[in-house]
């Protein structure tokens, strides 16, 4: 093999890489918080919400879970402007991630809610809690704690999936790698380095979510 690996360009392009990392982190931070919130609302609707809204949410969840993220992104970024909704690439990327994570986390949270014993609802009602209060204090928090590991994995999957947003020119880490690749023609090095960064980000994100879980649900017994 006559190819010589050359990593010295890293120094020269570190602002691009750093910016890419920050945008990837920003996307997953916004997407994570809003996506899980959307998931909670949808899970509430499917479990206890008004009857007419349930099939709507079910349709949304099935549609998102059975189509590729890339197509959802293209539909939002290229398709919606023809309805008069012009979005810049970062907004489109953010919306796509929220919509995507919302559907997945809805299913995960719903599984947690379904695992709540019936008696918990009745116990809440017997303490004169409104259905909303029961849901908020008695059902939701233990459910979230139960499914927190699954939810964390899903957030990591969405973070890794966000590399696709480079395709609508959102300047994330993959965009930086593509940029460097087109400037230096050192494709292999550019992609190896960014892949390694993604791996580190995934491991760190998993750790952060684990710590976050312990902070949000302190002192609760498992199950």
């Amino acid at each position, binding site marked *: 093999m006559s190819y010589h690996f050359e990593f010295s360009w890293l120094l020269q392009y570190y602002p691009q890489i750093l910016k890419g990392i920050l945008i990837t982190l920003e996307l997953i931070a916004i997407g994570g918080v809003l996506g899980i919130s959307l998931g909670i609302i949808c899970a509430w609707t499917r479990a206890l919400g008004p009857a007419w809204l349930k099939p709507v949410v079910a349709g949304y969840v099935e549609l998102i879970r059975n189509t590729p993220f890339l197509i959802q992104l293209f539909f939002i970024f290229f398709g919606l402007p023809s309805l008069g909704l012009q979005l810049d690439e970062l907004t489109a990327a953010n919306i796509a991630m929220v919509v995507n994570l919302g559907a997945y986390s809805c299913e995960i949270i719903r599984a947690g809610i379904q695992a709540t014993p019936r008696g918990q609802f009745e116990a809440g009602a017997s303490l004169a809690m409104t259905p909303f209060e029961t849901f908020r204090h008695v059902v939701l928090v233990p459910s979230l704690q139960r499914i927190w590991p699954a939810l964390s994995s899903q957030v990591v999957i969405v973070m890794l*999936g966000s590399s696709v947003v480079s395709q609508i020119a959102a300047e994330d880490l993959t965009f930086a790698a593509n940029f460097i690749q087109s400037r230096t023609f050192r494709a292999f090095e550019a992609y190896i380095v960014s892949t390694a960064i993604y791996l580190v980000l995934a491991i760190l994100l998993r750790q952060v979510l684990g710590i976050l879980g312990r902070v949000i649900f302190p002192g609760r017994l498992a199950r």
Partner: protein
Amino acid sequence: MIEFTTWDIIRNLLLATRWTVLLSLVSFVGGGTAGLLLLFLRISKRKALRGFARYYIELFQGTPLLMQLFIAFFGLGLFGIDVPAWLAAGLALILWTASFLAEIWRGCVEAVAKGQWEASASLGMGRFQQMRYIILPQALKVAIPPTVGFSVQVVKGTALTSIIGFVELSKAGTVVTNATFQPFTIYGLVALIYFALCWPLSKSSQILERKLNVAHRNH
């Protein structure tokens, strides 16, 4: 400019869907075979083999599929091989699928009661015989629903191969959009075709899981 009728658009998209289906099948079968091998390594008695499989799985599950595709596409070229997009796409998807299936199946193997290992060992069975005759047949039952469920991820994963230039459903969608300037309709249709491919798989995975749960409850 050539005018495209709706039928032209749908026909073009459906023709490209063949490649999505073919690539999904290749990835799933290839990834299943490689995943089985990886499963044997992952539960091997040798520490080095177990470690290798663990790091392999961590690496492929901890990095974006898109990056794996880029590395397969550009990286193999370094060895002087002229890599066509379909080869890079197939290779990356097989390796990626293997990492997920191996981990899913490991869970299923571990769900088999420990006594089964001990009982088969007491009959003088070797490691391979234990797996072949005792453990895998029992693990298989538990493994089917999540495996079918994961096939949906494979079908959706093939959409990324459009980025390295493999012409399948997503790429065809982009090409047709560029020719007709109707992104809303076309990406909507593309999404519907993916849905038509994936939804039956998701649904059957759910039904199989429910059946399995019922079977377990009757024990």
